[in-house]
């Protein structure tokens, strides 16, 4: 029995499961296991009663439009609880559709406004075309201390979204776009960070080839649950970083 265990809530795993979201959850789980930290993944379905007090890392992935509208109403029922836990410091990673639904609202291409839960002070409007391609962002100017790791501050991934997400002034983006489209398709900024909650359009999957972000999520969640402790022991990550470097090279070449 490991001394310390983290609980990951994978929200709507059966409904919002596009673009290898499994890879992100799998990465959190493996990188805990490899360090002797327990990791319990709870798949939370629509209309399933859950206690977010148990949740150390909340993960919400992306879905097709139809799936997204199915979960939007259910997510609203958890809205107050999730907002409260985020205020308390719960670690979250939300990608694509998940990122949009944690904003205030999402105006779809059918002219329907889906409600968000307002963790992020941001609104999304469906654009006419899809923003598709490899993407690299640089997080060095992100002011959130908990994201600092002393190494390469870039994140690599693949984006495929029609939504344009506009952040209110005061909400920090996750990073500056090095290559790719980003939140509003203009190649300026990507994602958002509020407290310990990250929103982004990067899948690919995101965490396997950005091991530093996976480790910051794990370390921060451990600190929230068990209080400050030793830094995470490093892992043999050369393959992860080779894939990271390859993605940068690939993005810049295209």
């Amino acid at each position, binding site marked *: 029995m490991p001394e310390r265990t983290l609980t990951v809530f994978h929200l709507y795993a059966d409904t919002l499961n596009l673009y*290898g979201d499994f890879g992100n959850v*799998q990465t959190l789980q493996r990188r805990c296991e490899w360090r002797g930290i327990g990791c319990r993944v709870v798949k939370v379905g629509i209309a399933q009663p859950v206690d977010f007090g148990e949740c150390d890392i909340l993960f919400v992935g992306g879905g097709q439009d139809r799936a997204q509208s*199915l979960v939007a109403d259910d997510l609203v029922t958890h809205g107050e609880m999730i907002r409260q836990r985020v205020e308390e410091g719960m670690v979250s990673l939300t990608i694509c559709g998940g990122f949009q639904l944690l904003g205030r609202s999402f105006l779809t291409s059918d002219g329907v406004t889906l409600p968000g839960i307002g963790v992020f002070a941001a609104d999304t409007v469906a654009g006419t075309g899809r923003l598709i391609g490899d993407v690299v962002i640089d997080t060095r100017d992100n002011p959130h201390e908990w994201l600092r790791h002393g190494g390469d501050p870039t994140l690599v991934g693949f984006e495929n979204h*029609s939504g344009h997400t506009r952040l209110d002034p005061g909400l920090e983006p996750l990073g500056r776009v090095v290559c790719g489209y980003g939140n509003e398709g203009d190649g300026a900024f990507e994602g958002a960070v509020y407290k310990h909650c990250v929103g982004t359009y990067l899948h690919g999957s995101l965490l396997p080839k950005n091991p530093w972000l996976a480790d910051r999520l794990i370390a921060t969640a451990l600190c929230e649950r068990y209080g400050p402790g030793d830094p995470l022991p490093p892992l043999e990550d050369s*393959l992860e970083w080779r894939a990271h470097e*390859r993605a940068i090279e690939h993005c810049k070449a295209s």
Partner: protein
Amino acid sequence: MAASEHGAGIAGSRTGRPDRLAPVRRPAFDPLRAAAIIAGKTTASATRLFRVGGGTSLPGLVADRVHPGLVRELAERVAGGFIVVTGTNGKTTTTKMLSGMLRRDGTRVISNDSGSNLHRGISSSLIRSADILGRGLRGAEMAVLEVDEGSMPDVVSDVRPRIAVAMNFVRDQLDRYGEVDSIVATVGEALAGRPDMTTVLNADDPYVAGLGRYAAGPVVYYGLDDPVLDPRPDPLLEAMYCRRCGHELAYRTRYYGHNGDWHCPNCGLERPPLDYAVTDIALTPRSSAFSLLGQGVILRIELPVPALYNVYNAAAAATASFVYGVPSRAVAAELRDYRAAFGRMETLDVDGRDVILLLSKNPVAARQALAAVLIDEQPKHLAFALNDNFADGRDISWIWDVDFEDYDMARHTIVATGTRAEDMALRLKYAGVPAEGIVVERDPGTALRELVRDMPPGGLAYALATYTAMIAIRNAFAHDGSTFAHLGRLMRGGNA
């Protein structure tokens, strides 16, 4: 359940065998049309000579500029008409099976290849096969075309098929098309407004079955009906929802992927009744056998290739053949002698060892390929070739949806290759393969040589590859000439 929900149905409206041998009106000589055909053919030769894009799409573009509507005119001269085959997985195999069945029945058929299943590529293929006077396609009475889902509206509008076959829609190349729902709508648009066309649909795929309501002409459903078969399917990649009420669908029997006997527990919508049903299925690692029932047909079919998805491919081809009027002995004989299509369980010689090449271009195809290869516990030599070129889909995150975790991957010798070899290796590391045990080599030819290096001569290895990676591998090891020669033979209607 309302019958209208599934389209017109076929009772009393089946087209039957068309009058394929009816005399065709001879068109007057049209110099502009001839010029357009010559321009297209010249472009085809020139692009092939210089290896520009494999010479696939430019001829259509050039000919279209010289004489717009040329393809439509050519298509009208094809006495036996067209059959188009679409869907995410299995188009090439089904097209090959179907063409073979028609040939067995003595029909001269031409067909395209998977490298030219987009609208322009199909136009180019037809122009290359046209006789210069525009009287039709040289030596062909009819054509069977595999058509990319996104090109269906344009191709159907051009060639006005007698029969359209739709097999399955799964997540594949979302970066190109957006979502499965929008693909269904695109194909639906192609089926609407064509009362003279019979639509053949896989009833087991809820997305495909839903196309029935778009079809203006007769609809024929095929599917599996074998509740005692225990295929132990993978967990669903994502839940399926009722197109009528939005409730999650349930399955009485699920065969693989989201194919099965589905129904909606909320509103009662269910799989349409099968016009052609596959029953009594027996699967072995090397072959399959099944019975096909329907429309006065009772057939036992032996298929010398394994895997349930090939049973679906065979059922699609057989159903389309029956609708066209091919006798059942031709259908059964073609399937009995079937040889795998290009890259579909094809065997290559790599330095004296056999490498079986399996196309694995999306999670459903890759899961099926893995299940077919890892059917026993023996340690194996496996290459995973992941490219992210346009034809493969630029987004590679689907590899995380392949259920490697369900197998003990660490027991196998593994090479990761392709333009995204590092990502492939990383995927396998997180599936439990020690990173130091994975060879990462971007060049597929070098990678396959490395894979077989410690194997005895005559040994057997497997390569699971995305589309362009498969072509690269075949180019590196094919000993019967280049891929272009191979595709050329397919184009001329010979056997692969």
